[in-house]
């Protein structure tokens, strides 16, 4: 199946209602505002702002959230360039050359280049998303419960990549996520599980308040613990980006976009990895590698193109298979589900109008990003100066209101606060939070598809090996796990260097 331009055109017609561009614009503005504040992560911002979309039509709410995602990744570069403090992890590589340009009095040039590289890369990434998603979904449409079970099993192995240095810790977090997902009614039999007779627990733990807690409220605790610095804003007038600059970085942007697009598709990796890989590749290929880290416009463009290109393709695993590629798409998945839309291949059949409207709005958001960013960038720089001692309490209150608003339930505020404190303690103990979230999100689908598969096969596991696609997936899964265990074993039992005692 190739791209259906008719559907894309219909998508554009659907968003030409005034409200969708407004939603995308507001999301973009909110994302850029929040993203320019040092320390506010993309995950935190999407978690805080997602409850607002539950009251909107999906055609407006989804572009709003995507606008937030794009805005925050783009504006994370503003504090990185101006004060050498990345707005979020995806802008970490930007600061290397961006801040050096600021010190040379070329902050305006750096800010403009970061915007242009971001917009170009995002646009190219969106085109890849549009062309790749439907053909992949047409393959996924052939999947039945056994194939989906294996797909969920694949996604669960992502826990290993998100576990950091300790696999047992990642698995403990994942097991906690599975347990949280098991609370409430059993999806097949309807029996209550681990509800302790509580009416609130019968419906299960609401995921969005939990996400707000573990990502946003725990972040407030982490940031309040750090010393709250006061920043001095540098001069932002001066030299601007020229056509010669653009010609010099054109290939760097294209190459970094290619890398960013690929990294975005891979599960467990996102903008924060893409920026470093794109930066490294640009330095390797550059005619002036010695300028990198000393104010190279190429380095800046590479980092920004890399992280922004990964934003649209980050959505591919979620849209096509219904599995989140990283924590931001995990929250987006939760927001989609709260809207009654279940991402996956069937979305192309059941909600194709929303999907193509989403693609159209992604393209539109890029145009808005360019115009809005160009005009507002000189004003956004002032956001860097908002004192965190005022910002953190305000974020806390918004989290409380947002958690309550999802289901009009006070219990959800309790879930968010508990999630916040537990998330903070997990982070202090270096217990990774993403495996918990991924497991909590995937378990219901995994459990349902596994049990449906077993009903189909009268309880026999052979169904995972006798169907052609399932057999290929099972083999790949077993081979992948075996390889992973072999590598882990090799690393663990590798001969340690002998220490020579010296006098």
């Amino acid at each position, binding site marked *: 199946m190739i791209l259906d331009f008719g559907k894309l055109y219909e998508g554009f017609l659907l968003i030409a209602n005034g409200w969708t561009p407004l939603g995308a614009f507001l999301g973009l503005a909110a994302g850029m505002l929040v993203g320019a504040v040092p320390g506010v992560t993309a995950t935190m911002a999407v978690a805080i702002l997602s409850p*607002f979309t539950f*009251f909107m039509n999906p055609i407006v709410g989804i572009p709003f959230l995507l606008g937030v995602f794009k805005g925050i990744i783009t504006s994370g570069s503003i504090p990185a360039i101006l004060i050498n403090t990345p707005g979020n992890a995806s802008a970490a590589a930007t600061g290397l050359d961006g801040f050096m340009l600021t010190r040379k009095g070329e902050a305006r040039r750096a800010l403009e280049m970061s915007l242009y590289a971001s917009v170009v890369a995002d646009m190219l990434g969106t085109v890849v998303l549009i062309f790749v998603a439907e053909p992949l979904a047409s393959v996924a449409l052939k999947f039945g419960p056994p194939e989906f079970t294996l797909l969920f099993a694949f996604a669960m192995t992502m826990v290993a990549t998100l576990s950091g240095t*300790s696999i*047992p*810790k990642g*698995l*403990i977090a*994942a*097991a*906690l996520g*599975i*347990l949280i*997902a*098991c609370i409430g009614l*059993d999806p*097949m*039999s309807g*029996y*209550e*599980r*681990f*509800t*302790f007779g509580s009416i609130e627990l019968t419906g299960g733990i609401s995921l969005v308040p939990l996400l707000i807690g573990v990502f946003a*409220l725990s972040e*407030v*605790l982490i940031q*309040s*613990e*750090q*010393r*709250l610095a006061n920043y001095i804003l540098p001069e932002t007038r001066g030299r601007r980006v020229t056509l010669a600059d653009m010609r010099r970085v054109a290939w760097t942007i294209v190459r970094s976009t290619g890398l960013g697009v690929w990294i975005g598709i891979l599960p467990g990796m996102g903008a924060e990895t893409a920026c470093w890989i794109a930066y490294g590749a640009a330095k390797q290929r550059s005619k002036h590698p010695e300028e990198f880290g000393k104010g190279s416009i190429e380095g800046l463009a590479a980092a920004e193109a890399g992280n922004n290109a990964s934003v649209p393709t980050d959505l591919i695993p979620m849209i096509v298979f219904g599995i989140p590629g990283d924590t931001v798409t995990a929250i987006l998945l939760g927001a989609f589900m709260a809207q009654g839309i279940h991402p996956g291949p069937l979305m192309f059949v059941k909600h194709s109008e929303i999907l193509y409207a989403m693609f159209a709005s992604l393209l539109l958001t890029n145009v808005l990003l360019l115009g809005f960013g160009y005009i507002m960038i000189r004003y956004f720089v002032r956001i860097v100066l908002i*004192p*965190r*001692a*005022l910002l*953190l*309490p*305000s974020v*806390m*209150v*918004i989290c*409380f*209101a947002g958690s*309550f*608003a999802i289901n*009009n339930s*006070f219990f959800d*505020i*309790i879930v968010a*606060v508990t999630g*916040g*404190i537990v998330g*903070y303690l997990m982070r202090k*103990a*270096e217990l990774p939070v993403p495996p918990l979230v991924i497991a909590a999100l995937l378990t219901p689908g995994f*459990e349902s598809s596994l*049990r449906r598969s*077993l*009903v189909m096969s009268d*309880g026999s596991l052979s169904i995972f090996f006798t169907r052609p696609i399932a057999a290929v997936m099972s083999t790949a899964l077993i081979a992948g796990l075996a390889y992973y265990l072999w590598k882990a074993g090799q690393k663990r039992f590798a001969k340690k260097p002998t220490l020579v005692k010296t006098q």
Partner: protein
Amino acid sequence: MRGINPEFIVALIAGSLAVATLALVPYQVPGETLAAIRNLESPAFFPIIAGGLMGICAVLLAANTVASERAGQGLRLTFEQPRTVVLVIATYIGLLLGAHYVGLIASSAVAIALMAWGLGYRNLKILIPVAALVPACIYLLFQKGLFVILPGGVLFR
């Protein structure tokens, strides 16, 4: 090295949670026992798997921690500003109780002012307007814009 190794605490909590989960299966999943581990279609299968996985990982983590302690490479739990952390957690709990008893908007104003002051912000000319404006904006946005009836407080019912 002095201080607590957080991995010991994680292993201890995870181990306790695993035992509790497995022990509660017969009581919290109707008609099921731990024997359901052999039945993939049972509603108790996933909770048992989660409990078992957590238990095994707790033991592995504990073993790793003992090894790293012996090698003198154990982690240490550090709180850079414990007073601030306690203040923020107390504000969360205070706002939770305040939202229940006197309403979210009124208690938000107080919570913002107290937390910002506790975090070291002393400019009252800005702090007081912010403490009043943020809850007012939340009220307008949620209650008037999105028609969400925010908690009004049981004391005012």
